[in-house]
């Protein structure tokens, strides 16, 4: 088990939280570092002074009752939240050391490195093949052979290749909901992001499809940092390395998942995970 990050120079320039890294969780580089983030929708103060570090090759779960700001936080990480015109924010989020709100950091570049999977599967109304090839194509990859290769790799990566390899020309909406969601994950993989953000990716799926997606997340974390919003606490406990508990726009507690679920520091966390509210 590697304890120390290889790239010391990078470490020195990146704010890295190590204080909670015990021996059973390797110390990993921080991909995203959120500092004193506040966000408002008009007058609604949706995120209050958030400080959170997200580590590479880990699954970070965000839990909390509905309306507490989980989706808002996730959408802030790839700046999709700014599509709502009334949003205002203060504070900073660095992505690999660069402030994502910085004018010189093009939002398209950020989103090319950070994939997102939505609550409801949202494939494009195109063929399975075109869904995967869309990302590489807009980023300038035209060579048919290369695209074929990427499509196969991505579909394999999302463990859906065997189910769709004979029907790549079919419309994506001919797939089942669970397959559509894995197709959307494959669509992310096709642009080789570093981070994948998932907003309740299994809440619209049946148990069997959910299990498949969870299994997939476990495999993906070998290569990607994954941030997953979930209202299913068993799911957070099963698949995540760290868990952040949000309540009314604040982070009540953020720690290793094992700690959060066995001996939470805050009474409110305990109440929530034991099902007393939410």
């Amino acid at each position, binding site marked *: 088990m590697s304890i120390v990050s290889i790239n010391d120079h990078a470490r020195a320039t990146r704010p890295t939280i190590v204080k909670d890294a015990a021996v059973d969780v390797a110390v990993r580089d921080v991909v995203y570092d959120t500092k004193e983030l506040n966000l408002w929708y008009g007058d609604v103060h949706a995120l209050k002074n958030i400080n959170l570090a997200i580590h590479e090759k880990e699954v970070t779960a965000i839990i909390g009752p509905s309306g507490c700001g989980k989706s808002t936080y996730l959408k802030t990480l790839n700046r999709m939240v700014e599509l709502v015109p009334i949003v205002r924010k203060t504070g900073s989020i660095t992505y690999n050391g660069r402030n994502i709100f910085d004018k010189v950091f093009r939002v398209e570049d950020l*989103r090319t490195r950070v994939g997102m999977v*939505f609550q409801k599967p949202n494939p494009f109304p*195109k063929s399975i093949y075109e869904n995967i090839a*869309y990302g590489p*194509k807009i*980023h300038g990859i035209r060579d048919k052979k290369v695209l074929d290769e990427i499509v196969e790799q991505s579909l394999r990566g999302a463990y859906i290749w065997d189910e769709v390899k004979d029907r790549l020309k079919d419309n994506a909406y001919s797939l089942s909901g669970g397959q559509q969601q894995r197709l*959307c994950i494959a*669509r992310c993989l096709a642009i080789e992001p570093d981070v994948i953000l998932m907003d309740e990716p299994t809440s619209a799926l049946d148990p069997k499809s959910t299990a498949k997606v969870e299994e997939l997340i476990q495999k993906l974390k070998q290569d990607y940092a994954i941030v997953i919003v979930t209202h299913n606490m068993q799911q957070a406990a099963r698949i995540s390395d760290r868990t952040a508990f949000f309540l009314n726009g604040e982070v009540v507690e953020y720690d290793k998942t094992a700690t959060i679920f066995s001996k939470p520091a805050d009474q409110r966390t305990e109440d929530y995970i034991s099902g007393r509210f939410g």
Partner: protein
Amino acid sequence: MPHPKLSTSHKSSVSIRDMIEAKKSSRQLGAKLEKGIPVILLLIALVSILTTVGIVLTLFTEMIEFFRRVPIMDFFTGTVLKPLSQTPEFGVLPLITGTVLSSAVAMAVAAPVGLMTAIYLSEYASERARKIFKPMLEVLAGIPTIVYGFFAFTFVTPLLREIIPGLEATNILSPGIVMGIMIIPMIASLSEDAMRSVPNSMRAGALALGSTKLEVTGRVVIPAAFSGIVASFVLGISRAIGETMIVTIASGSSKNFTFDLTQSMQTMTAYIVEVTGGDAAAGSTIYYSLYAVAMTLFVFTLLMNVLARYVSRRFREEY
């Protein structure tokens, strides 16, 4: 089961179930009516179908009479149209080129402008900008075509003649452009509807992959709305083909067979106006020629609709 509120507050009051039972008889009539509804609605729907069939049949029988007098090949391949001459000739090609060219000019104006307007309104405009823009478009759509014709003749043609010295006082270019302006609101509004009905989740999916707004519009929204956009274009073309007043006023009545937009030409519709406006004696060949031209016009619009159905089905993206 009695309603809890009713049964607790008034022990003796009737239950809801009883009330429903009591009303049952008065609903008998309604039930009978319900059976008759499909038949009544079918009859009403038949009115429009029968009217269409009636019109087509009339056109057809009168057209047959025309083709007894003028060989069908002379009509469809003839480039000379001289209905009032001592030695009349009834070639329809001058009218077809007039119609096709004026519609082509109209679409060259209306398709890009209408689509760009739709893109702006659907993808870029703020809620406020749209609230101002849309009613203005509707005003444009509500202007009577005679006003457009007048506008083409007295304003657009003189303006164009400044730029194109060879332009005749009556020409096909000016009414073509003005017809295009007339059609813009229709294309803009129908295309915008089609684009706005593309779910936002698809835009979000594309943006999250690092697309720019233009890429989202061009590669996701427009393809998803394609059948609606094609439908708006076809309606636009049909409108242009069927438009009468603007070309009658601004293009004159020369029956030139040419592809030169600066010249005066006549469209099928304008020909029908001219002939019915003059005194075409019933039973004369020129009278029957109306039906042959009208039938040709009808076939044109029919073909457009068939083509549109094919195109929109062929390229439809279903979601």
